């Protein structure tokens, strides 16, 4: 489709606007994090750093268990990811592939999970986790993160199962494969882009979660990155250098991850939606 010149101008303006609001703030955080303290708190901000230092990163890594937080966050996110994929993919398969009667009602019930404020669940969940001996453990966070990631993932997944021709399945059934085999050997590989999307979705939901992690985790050794970073924010002193370095380091792993698999997230979503 050919665009008019006006169309090009509008498009370029939109893209420029998006670049400024989405990307520039990250540049600003990173460039500030490598300035010396005096330049950071200077009243005249400098777009290009006039000084250069890794001291904030050094201080961060030396004086806090940042790498440990990173490892914890990874464990929580990977655990959440695996369970969410299994639960959501199988539920989506059940609901949309097998065309169960009343599936829309079931699906709506699943979505209504989001009607309950996290605050409401927090206190009873604390008691429940405590009785199960899960307070201050990684599984506690995985359990609750799956709850908030899975329902939406079911919906994201639904498109994929409706794009795969039923005939493939029927053919396999004729060959004597059972439902599980069909699901694992035939449908999963075909739905791989969708699985990638919900895997990334679950990973990110878990990676960014703060409220439950701040309450259900007690010891420093099991804190996730957001909680560890909030700890550095503190209240008594604002060490902007440390804070900015912490933010940059917290953002960095997901940026790397996204650089590697980000294409799949968007492509997976859009691929599924195409007829």
């Amino acid at each position, binding site marked *: 489709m050919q665009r008019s010149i006006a169309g090009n101008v509008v498009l370029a303006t939109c893209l420029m606007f998006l670049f400024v609001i989405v990307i520039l703030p990250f540049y600003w955080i990173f460039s500030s994090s490598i300035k010396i303290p005096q330049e950071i708190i200077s009243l005249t901000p400098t777009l290009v750093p006039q000084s250069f230092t890794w001291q904030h990163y050094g201080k961060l890594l030396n004086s806090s268990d940042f790498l440990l937080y990173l490892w914890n966050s990874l464990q929580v996110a990977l655990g959440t990811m695996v369970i969410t994929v299994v639960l959501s993919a199988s539920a989506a398969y059940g609901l949309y592939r097998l065309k169960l009667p009343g599936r829309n009602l079931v699906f709506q019930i699943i979505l209504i999970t989001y009607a309950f404020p996290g605050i409401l669940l927090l206190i009873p969940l604390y008691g429940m986790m*405590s009785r199960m001996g899960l307070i201050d453990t990684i599984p506690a966070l995985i359990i609750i993160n799956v709850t908030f990631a899975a329902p939406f993932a079911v919906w994201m997944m639904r498109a994929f199962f409706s794009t795969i021709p039923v005939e493939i399945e029927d053919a396999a059934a004729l060959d004597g494969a059972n439902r599980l085999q069909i699901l694992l050997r035939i449908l999963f590989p075909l739905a791989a882009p969708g699985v990638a999307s919900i895997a990334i979705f679950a990973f990110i939901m878990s990676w960014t979660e703060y409220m439950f992690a*701040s309450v259900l985790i*007690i010891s420093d050794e099991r804190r996730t990155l957001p909680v560890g970073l909030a700890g550095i924010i*503190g209240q008594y002193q*604002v060490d902007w250098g440390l804070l900015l370095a912490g933010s940059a380091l917290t953002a960095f792993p997901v940026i790397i991850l996204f650089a590697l698999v980000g294409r799949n997230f968007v492509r997976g979503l859009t691929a599924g939606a195409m007829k």
Partner: protein
Amino acid sequence: MKRLPVFVLLIALLALVVPATAQDDPVEVTLWHMEQPPHRVERIQELIDEFNAANPDVVVSQEVQSWGDIYQKAPAAVAAGNAPEILFAIPDFTPILKEVGGLQSMETFIEEIDAEYDFVDTAVEPYSYDGGVWAVPMYNMAHSLWYRESVFEEAGIEVPTTWSEWLAAAEALTTEDRYGIGIPANRQLYTDQTVYNLMINSGADEIYNEDGTLRFNNPDTIAAFEFYNELSQFSPPDSPNWTWGEAEACFASGGCAMIMQFTVITTYDTQAEGIAEDLGIAPIPVMDGMESAGTIAYSNGAMVMTDDEAKIEASERFLAFLLEPENYGRFLNMEPGLFLPVTAAGSEAESFWGDPLVVKYQSQVEQMVANSQSGRLFGFTNGNTFPSIASISAQNLLAQTLQLVVIDGESAEDAVAEGQALMEEAIE
């Protein structure tokens, strides 16, 4: 990450060296505190490591918590049975945990320490009520007015001692790229503190009558709120949303000429000029016509939250270790100049005055100690302790009342009346 190996090594070593004690499991003591800055955590860890090495039958470990969520976390932990053995607290916080249960009265222990190192009485008082002493005082914190000598010299004015001088100074020091003063107005503990500083110095330090009814709504309180509002016009536009850290950063950058704060020494030394002679400290100015200046001061204490005899004994041993003059100074100097001694022995300890930063800023630290002598805390004044103050401070009602004036533009009279109504509702 960094601490773990030391621990493992230590336990492994102990298992080799003292097989006899290694057979009995060592008593585990967990300490929760809210001193989040990394260098404070590090200092506490050093002391813990030393204690653990000297006491093979005890293993102390620390978990750093945040003031932001400790109010929900600690009671929940007690209820669920995974509370720490020791929790550092301020007087406002103790009544809440006492109500949840599990607090030990530390009376006997405190008497023992008192006999040896002589506790400052005003530090023990806020924890003494209902027939017990519910926390061991560990350190004192008090507000002062911080400024730069050179800034006052340049403007050709004296350091203020009265409110009229203070307001004039704030105005005179406000320039193109500097605000005369930085004071907060959000619903936070820091605002409670700065507001109460003014209340003390207008004669409104008593929030309660002797009989426990409220006397917050009085002309002295109103005067304090009015003056706070006047001062805040010389404060930066984002200061209403500040906590301690932003105020300190504003002072360090030179954007604020004066702030009220516990200490600015570390920040000033590492992030600003770090010229000891230029860093000024004064008592909070008094309302014109008032006699003596006062300031808000907190006696921070350690609560012991276990019924287990062995754990109580181990916890007491650890606290006694921290209060030993040789260690006490190093403990206080986890943030040089912020934490002031609560024992007579501690205030003379070489370990306190020997810290390089304390040596460099000795006159400032001496002034802080002097200011802290006239320290007071709302709800715990003049020997009367009203545990119901916990409900008032947990909701930051002093700060909330201030917001009615500074943010919503109500008159101080209306706001203070409304504030008293809120307080009555809170403590009923």
